[in-house]
C-alpha cells in the first residue's frame, strides 16, 4: 500500500513539476507547484516525516506560495506570456544537458539499495524508536535545541538578514 501511494504521490509530484516548468501562465505554474509541494508532503508522510509534511503544507505550500502569488499579482504578471518558455536550440540543449545530468544522478542513486552502508545502519526502525521516545515533534525539537543549537541560532541571524534585506530592497523611495 505505501508503495502504491508513493508512486501516486511521486507521479503527481513529477507531473506537477513538469507543469511548473511548462505552464506558461505564472499563476498556473504556481498552482502546479502547490500540487507538487503537496505531493511531496504526502511522500514525507510515507517516509515517516509527518511533522515536516505538516510544515511543508503550511509553510511552503501555504505561506510561501501565497507570497509568490502575492508578488505575481502585485507586479500584475498573472497573464499568459507566450515567450516565457524558451524553444528551439536553447531549450533542446538545456534538455539534453539536464537529461544527461539526471541520467548520471539516477544512475548513481539507483544502486543505493545494494549499498552495505544501509545494511548495518538502523534503518526505518530507528526513527520509530526515536519517535516513540520523544514524540514526533520532540524528536525534531530536542536535537534542535541541543546538538543543533548553533545552526538554529544562525538561522535566526539568517532570517534577520533576510528581513533587513527584504525591507531595504522592497521599501519605497530612497
Amino acid at each position, binding site marked *: 500500500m505505501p508503495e502504491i501511494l508513493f508512486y501516486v504521490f511521486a507521479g503527481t509530484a513529477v507531473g506537477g513539476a513538469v507543469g511548473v516548468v511548462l505552464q506558461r501562465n505564472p499563476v498556473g505554474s504556481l498552482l502546479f507547484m502547490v500540487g507538487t509541494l503537496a505531493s511531496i508532503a504526502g511522500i514525507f508522510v510515507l517516509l515517516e516525516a509527518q511533522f515536516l509534511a505538516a510544515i511543508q503544507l503550511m509553510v511552503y505550500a501555504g505561506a510561501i506560495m501565497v507570497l509568490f502569488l502575492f508578488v505575481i499579482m502585485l507586479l500584475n504578471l498573472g497573464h499568459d506570456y507566450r515567450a516565457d518558455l*524558451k524553444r528551439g536550440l*536553447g531549450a533542446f*540543449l*538545456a534538455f539534453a*544537458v*539536464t537529461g*544527461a*545530468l539526471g541520467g*548520471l*544522478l539516477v*544512475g*548513481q542513486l539507483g544502486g543505493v539499495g545494494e549499498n552495505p552502508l544501509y545494511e548495518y545502519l538502523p534503518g526505518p526502525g530507528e526513527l520509530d524508536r526515536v519517535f516513540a521516545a520523544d514524540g514526533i515533534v520532540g524528536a525534531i525539537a530536542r536535537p534542535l535545541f541541543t546538538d543543533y543549537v548553533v545552526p538554529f541560532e544562525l538561522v535566526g541571524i539568517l532570517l534577520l538578514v533576510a528581513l533587513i534585506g527584504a525591507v531595504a530592497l522592497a521599501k519605497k523611495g530612497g
Partner: protein
Amino acid sequence: MTEFHPLLPGLIPLLPLLGFLGNGMLALVAGVRGAAELRAGAGAGKEKLGELAPPPWMRGLPSWIGPGAIGAAFLLTLMNFVGMARSGLEAPAIVRYWDWISTGGIRIEAALQLDQLSMIMMLVITGVGLLIHVFSVGYMREDPGYARYFAYLNLFVFFMLVLVMGASFPLMFVGWEGVGLCSYLLIGFWFEDREKADAGKKAFIVNRIGDFGFLVAIFLLFTSLGAVDYAGVFGAAPELLAYGGSTATAITLFLLIGAAGKSAQIPLYVWLPDAMAGPTPVSALIHAATMVTAGVYLVVRASVLFALAPAGSATVAAIGAATALFAATIALQQYDIKKVLAYSTVSQLGFMFMGVGAGAYVAGVFHLVTHAFFKGLLFLGAGAVIHSMHHALHATHKDWDAQDMRNMGGLRHKMPVTWVTMGIATLAIAGIWPFAGFFSKDEIVWYAGAARTGGYGALFTALWGVALVAAVLTAIYMTRLMVMTFYGSNRTGEREAEHLHEAPLVMTIPLSILAVLSLFGGWLNVPASLQESVFGGFGLLPMSDWLERWLEPVTELAQEIHLSHAGGYATASPLGGGAVLWAGIATGVALVTVGLTFRSVSKRGIRPASESGAPVGVVRGLLYHKWYVDELYDRVFVRPLLGASRIAWRWVDQILIDGSVNAVGSVFKALGWFGSLFQTGQVTTYAFVLTLGALAVLGALLL
C-alpha cells in the same frame, strides 16, 4: 760587434703620439673657435660655410709640433739604426712594457720588437714621413683644418710605427687598424665633400674586410701554435706546422686577405684609387710610401709561415701579378693625375707581392723602400702641380678640375724643380738604369721567373711574363703622365697660366731629397752579378747585396725552409739568359717604351677636359671606366647587402618578428574578445553553462 741595446724605442712611437695629442688639442681649439664664429655668422644671416682662417699661432705651432715629432722620431730611429748596424744583431731585440691583454687563456704583451726588418720600415716611415710632413707645411698652409691635419698625420705615424714595431701579431693588428683609421680620417679630411667622406668610408670598410682575414689568421695562429707573438710563432711554426699543410696554408691565405686589403690587391684594391680624395701629401705618405706597403711587410714578417705554405705563397704571387697588370692597364687611360699614380701604386704593390710571393722577401722589401722614395716623390710632385693649378684656377675662379691632366700641359717651364724631380721619379719607376726602381723591380721580375716553389714553376713562369708586360705598361703610363703634365703647350687658360708658379721652398726641398733618394736608392741592394757587369757602372755601384745581408737574420729561417723543400732558384730565366742579360733587356725595353710613348703622346692633340668627351673605343672605354669593377662590386656586393639589410629590417624584423610578437598580443586580445562573447548578460546562458559545468564535473567524477 757589440750587443745591441735599443735606445728608448718606446719614444719612437710615443713622439708622434704626443704630437698627435698636441696637435689634436690645437685642432679642437681651432674647431671650437671656428664653430663659434660659424654659429655667429649663421645667426647674422651670413650662411658662409667652411672653417675660418685660424690665428697665426695656431698655424705656427702645428708646423713645429707635427714635423718636429716625426723628426725627433727619425733621429731616434737613426741612432738605433746605427746601434743595430754596429752590433750585428742576430735575434730581435724585444722591449716589453706592460701586459696588454692578459687572461688565463692568452697573454699578449705591449712589447716592441726591433730587428732589421722593423728598422728598415721605421726608417722609411719616419724618414719619408718627415719629408712629407715638411712638404705638408707648405701644401696645407692655407687649409683651415691645419692642426687637425697634422694631428691625424702624427697619429698615422704613431700607428704605423706600432704596426712595424709591435712584437706580436695582435699588436701589429693595432697598428694595422690604426693606420686604417687614420687613412679613413685623412681621406675624409675635407669631409664636407660628400664624395671624399664616402671615399674614406669605403677605404675603412674595405680595409676591414682585410682585417677580418688578419684576425682569423691570428686566431688560427693562437689555436694551432699557442702563441701570437713573433718569437713564439716563428719558434713553433717550423715544428708544429707541416710544410704545405692545410693549417699553414689557411693561415697564410687569411693573412693574405689582410695583406690584400691593406695593400690594395685584387680583389680589395678598389679603395685605394678613391683614397686620392685626401690631401695629396697624405696620398704620398699613406697611400704610396707606408701604409699600403704594410701588406708586404706582413708577408715578409710572416715569411716563415709563407715559406711553410707554398700554395699560400704562390697565391700571393699570383694575386700580385694580376694586380700589377690589371692596375697598370687602368692607369693607361686615367686623366686624373692622382688616379694615375694611385693605379700605379696598386700596380707596384702588385710587383712587391709578386716578389714576396716568389720567396724573394728581400726584393719585396727593396722595392718597398725604393717605391717609397719615387712614389712619394711622384705624389708630392703631383701635389705641387695640383697646388699650383689650384692657385691658378682659384685666382680666376675657374671651376676646372685642378687634377685633370688634360687641363695641364707645358708646366715644365712654370715648375722646373717639380718637373726635374718628377722626371727622375718617372725614370725610376719605369725601371731605367741606374735609377732606384731599376734595381728593385728587376730583382722582383727576375725572382718571379726564377721561382719554382712547391711545384708552381709553371705558374711562376706565367707570372714572369705578366710582370714583364706590367713593367712595360708602367713605363707607358708614367711617360704619358709626364708628357701630359709638363710637355706641350699649356691648356689651363691664358689668364690662369700667369698664376701657375713653382712650389715654395718648403715643398721643393723634400722633392729634391726624394729625388736624390730615387736616384741612388737602388744602391741599397745592388746584386753582386749586376755590380760586376756593365750595369755596375764599372764597379761604381757600392753596397753589393747590402739589404740582402741586412735582412738575413729576419729572412734566414724562411729561406732555409724554402730551400730545403723547394730547392734553389733557377739561374736562368724561363726564356734563357741570366740575370744580367735580362736586366739589360728590361732597361732597354723600358727606354724604348718611354721614347715611343713620349712621341706618341706628344703628337696627340690633347684638349682640356671640358672640351673632350669620354674616350672612344671599347678597350679605351673599358680602361677609362676601370673595367667597371666599382660598378660590378656595387651590383654584386653593395646593393645585395643593402637589399638584404632592408629585407632583414622591413620583412624579417618588422613583419616577421615584430609582427609575430604583436600578433601574439592581438591573438590574446582576440581570444579574450571571443571569450567575452559568451558573457552575454543572459542569466539563462549563465545557468546553462553552470549546469553544463556541473555535468562535466559529475561526469569526470562518476564516469
